[in-house]
């Protein structure tokens, strides 16, 4: 397990060694800031509801951009061979990269704390949903990271990895908006699959074990998939 730490540190540092990190963070802050504050004063409500409802729509584009290089780049330049011939297990590699990506998403969310702080000067802010929202955002980011990691393990082309990641993540966000196409008997099941549904529950400040379990299971499935792909490549 000590290897997870070393891989995590290496991956996390290399995010900030390349311009990708700064580009992704800037775009994320610009887009969320603009969408959030253009409508904020119309509602005259001191809350972050609108910010958090944006995240399930923006994360499917931002998170795969963060994870796309994790395996694809290694496969492309061949450093994958060096990595795997050092004394590490597949689990070490997958977990290290996953945690680095989650930590990066957390780092990306830190500047947005200025939003609730600003708002708390404007009116009475209820901190419960804000804290819940951030916990939910990290969980959502983790689940999408795992999916992005899986997409990245499939191909040596980062652009393809990005597109596959976006497709799956956006699918999970949209699935509970598409329910009217489905027969009534399947509604419950597909409703449960929707990432947006679970995220909105948490961001209301209601931390339910079912929602947490959902994000953890999506993360697990993504990571396990990446693990299987690595196994298969041998």
């Amino acid at each position: 397990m000590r290897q997870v730490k070393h891989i995590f540190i290496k991956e996390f540092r290399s995010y900030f060694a390349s311009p990708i990190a700064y580009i992704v963070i800037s775009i994320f802050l610009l887009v969320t800031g603009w969408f959030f504050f253009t409508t904020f004063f119309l509602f005259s409500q001191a809350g972050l509801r609108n910010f958090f409802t944006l995240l399930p729509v923006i994360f499917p584009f931002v998170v795969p951009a963060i994870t796309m290089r994790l395996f694809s780049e290694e496969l492309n330049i061949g450093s994958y061979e060096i990595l795997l011939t050092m004394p590490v297990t597949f689990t070490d590699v997958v977990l290290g990269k996953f945690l680095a990506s989650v930590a990066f998403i957390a780092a990306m969310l830190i500047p947005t704390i200025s939003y609730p702080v600003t708002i708390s000067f404007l009116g009475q802010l209820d901190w419960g949903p804000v804290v819940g929202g951030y916990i939910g955002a990290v969980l959502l980011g983790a689940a999408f990271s795992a999916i992005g990691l899986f997409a990245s393990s499939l191909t040596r082309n980062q652009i393809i990895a990005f597109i596959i990641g976006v497709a799956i993540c956006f699918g999970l966000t949209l699935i509970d908006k598409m329910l009217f196409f489905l027969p009534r008997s399947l509604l419950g099941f597909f409703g449960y699959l929707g990432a947006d549904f679970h995220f909105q529950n948490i961001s209301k400040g209601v931390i339910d074990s079912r929602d947490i379990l959902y994000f953890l299971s999506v993360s697990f499935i993504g990571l396990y998939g990446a693990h299987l792909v690595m196994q298969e490549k041998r």
Partner: protein
Amino acid sequence: MIHVESLTKYYHDLCAVDQINFDIQKGEIVGLLGPNGAGKTTTLRMLTGFLRPTSGSIRVKDYDIDKYPLEIKKLIGYLPESAPLYHDMLVYDYLNYVADIRELDGGRKKSRIHQLADLCGINEIMHQPIGVCSKGYKQRVGLAHAMMNDPEILILDEPTAGLDPNQIAEIREIIRRIGKEKTIIISTHILSEAEAACNRVIIINQGKIVADGGIETLRQSAGGEYLINISLKNAGFEAAESELRSIDGINRVNKVVGEEGEEILHLRLTCRSSADLREEIYQRVKPTDWILLELHQETQSLEKVFQELTKES
């Protein structure tokens, strides 16, 4: 040290390595030779645990690679072909990361990195991103990577490919220096390299081992013919030819064209490789009034052996 038994690897339908067996003892420097696509890299990748064999077994120091891949990876330092390293990392950061994964602790880590930087001659690029380094430097960083935890076994896949002659000499020098106490496997398709560095050669062709042994044994086992060059003074070609042709074992006598008007006769004798004929030649020349200026046996180059063993049949 390394025991490989009926190792086979298929890529879908393509058979890359076909039922190979070999044993490598501690302290040997083994050259793995073969034409491109013979299965050298595949074999090495299986030895390092990067690829899973389709069938067959690999044991390193009593560890089976299926059950104890981590233990084996700790014993082996591996430099893959063309040293694929992270481009955006600084050399120092990279070596630091490798040292962490190889579980070197604080003080030892620092001293080992400096030691390797001296040994591999990479002091001046320690704070450059790997991506901007020249190929020779990358190769050396890769070598430092492979030697980080002072492994008992070093596996180098074409360590000198694409380098200039000076760099090749330097890398060979490094290999020779560390080869005294380590088991080393070098894959290459450059024969002079194997001749220079290795004390044992395994030749692979189309996934099969076609020769395995010391360089001398290989030369002899290849059979065929070898050459003796002699230079005679005061001798006519016809007389010398008939005299020498009567020796049993000499197949052909050719005149080597020398400079115009030279009175020295240069001859090339093509001999069957069963016996050493130099003594017999001297005995024949002794009673005549010819003066033997030069008598030189050409050893058959490994190139010939290699060509004979790996030509398409």
